[in-house]
């Protein structure tokens, strides 16, 4: 059995660790709350623009959609995947879950197209260090990388990311773009999710949307507005994903740090028990020695 002094040293160090993880847990939980608020604040705009896109798509109809590049479906030869991952670790299995989801999405898309005898190339746009490291490590092709988007990503961050995707799509480098990110469900659940970013799929009309086919006056004209609106719509989708990703990251970190604190405390208990046993053993030994000495 280890000496009492050694055990005491370990207890102290484990307690210190527990203190640090506890502090990180609290920081993560307050940052998560703020990130959640940001998601809430961004929601009105996202909802309005979604409704507007769906209404316009209905109003302008199929014929006009043909000429609008961002809507155009074309045979898929190359796929782009934008993945949003945390910049920093200490958030449990979240980064690897997202990475796995991105890889699975790529495989699935390739599988779908394999039936048609096409083997598409998949290129990744990584947001966050964890995703970049993964793509580099697994030697996949990377189109662009973004890091350090911080705790409060601004719309301009999202715009920069969206522009890479839109440019690649317009130049014909990729024929479809998917977005993979961790959807924030609640404090303990984050769901790695993927959806199609480009070509834009106009959201279907909501059922409770009482907007009948209103005849709008367009200034300058429907098509110009639609063409200006779609890139914004893509920006906003990326922005929402980015905000949710931050909330997810902190909620995952909070849970991971809570687990770490709990196991550190368990460890302290175990160690305290061994410490007491060791101390008792030492005392018993001393008494035995004294007794043995006195009887001779």
């Amino acid at each position, binding site marked *: 059995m280890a000496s009492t002094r050694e055990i005491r040293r370990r207890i102290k160090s484990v307690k210190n660790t527990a203190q640090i993880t506890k502090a990180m847990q609290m920081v993560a939980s307050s940052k998560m709350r703020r990130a959640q608020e940001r998601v809430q604040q961004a929601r*009105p*705009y996202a909802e*309005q623009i979604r409704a*507007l896109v769906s209404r316009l798509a209905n109003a302008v109809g199929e014929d006009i959609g043909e000429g609008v590049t961002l809507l155009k479906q074309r045979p898929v030869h190359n796929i782009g995947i934008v993945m949003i991952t945390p910049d920093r670790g200490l958030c449990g299995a979240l980064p690897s879950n997202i990475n796995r989801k991105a890889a699975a999405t790529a495989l699935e898309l390739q599988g779908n197209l394999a039936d048609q005898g096409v083997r598409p190339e998949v290129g990744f746009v990584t947001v966050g260090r964890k995703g970049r490291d993964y793509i580099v490590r697994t030697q996949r092709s990377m189109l662009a990388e973004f890091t350090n988007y911080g705790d409060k990503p*601004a719309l301009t961050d999202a715009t920069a990311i969206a522009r890479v995707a839109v440019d690649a799509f317009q130049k014909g480098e990729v024929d479809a773009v998917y977005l993979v990110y961790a959807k924030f469900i609640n404090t303990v659940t984050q769901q790695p999710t993927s959806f199609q970013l480009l070509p834009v799929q106009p959201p279907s009309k909501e059922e409770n949307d009482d907007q009948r086919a*209103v005849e709008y006056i*367009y200034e*300058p004209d429907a098509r110009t*507005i639609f063409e200006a609106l779609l890139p914004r719509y893509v920006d906003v989708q990326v922005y929402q994903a980015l905000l949710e990703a931050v909330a997810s990251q902190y909620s995952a970190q909070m849970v991971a740090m809570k687990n770490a604190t709990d196991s550190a405390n368990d460890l302290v208990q175990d160690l305290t028990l061994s410490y007491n046993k060791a101390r008792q053993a030492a005392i018993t030994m001393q008494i035995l020695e004294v007794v043995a000495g006195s009887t001779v």
Partner: protein
Amino acid sequence: MATRNTLHVEVVTAERELYNGEADIVSAPGSEGMLGILPRHAALLTTLKPGELNIKLNGSEEPLFVSGGFLEVSNNSVTVLADTAEHAEEIDQARAEAARRRAQESLEQAESDTQRAELIGALERAMTRLRVAELARRHGGRRIEMPHSEQ
């Protein structure tokens, strides 16, 4: 909810909501010219250019700066999806002035046409912001009471 004699107005940017309430009249910088929107306006959809968005209610007004975006009128409600927007009193005049000067100086050394176009856009935005701030200051009009105005 909007009655027959007022409009319901929402001004949102991707980052926050700036106004959600009633109005007697809304004037907005449409890309084809200034728009004045009164209650029971026909359904309209337009792009916006940088300028002053003014919401008036019962003699009070709420001047805002928008840098561009979209405006939709339907069903007696006006929705402004602004790229960026600020309440006039939030505009930092010193910063706007600095931005204007910066844009002007770099415009003189602009090399490519795209760069020049971007700088002209920036210059326009800065000048409009200054104008909106100035107008709001001079007017000193009563602000619309906002029960849930942020911060």
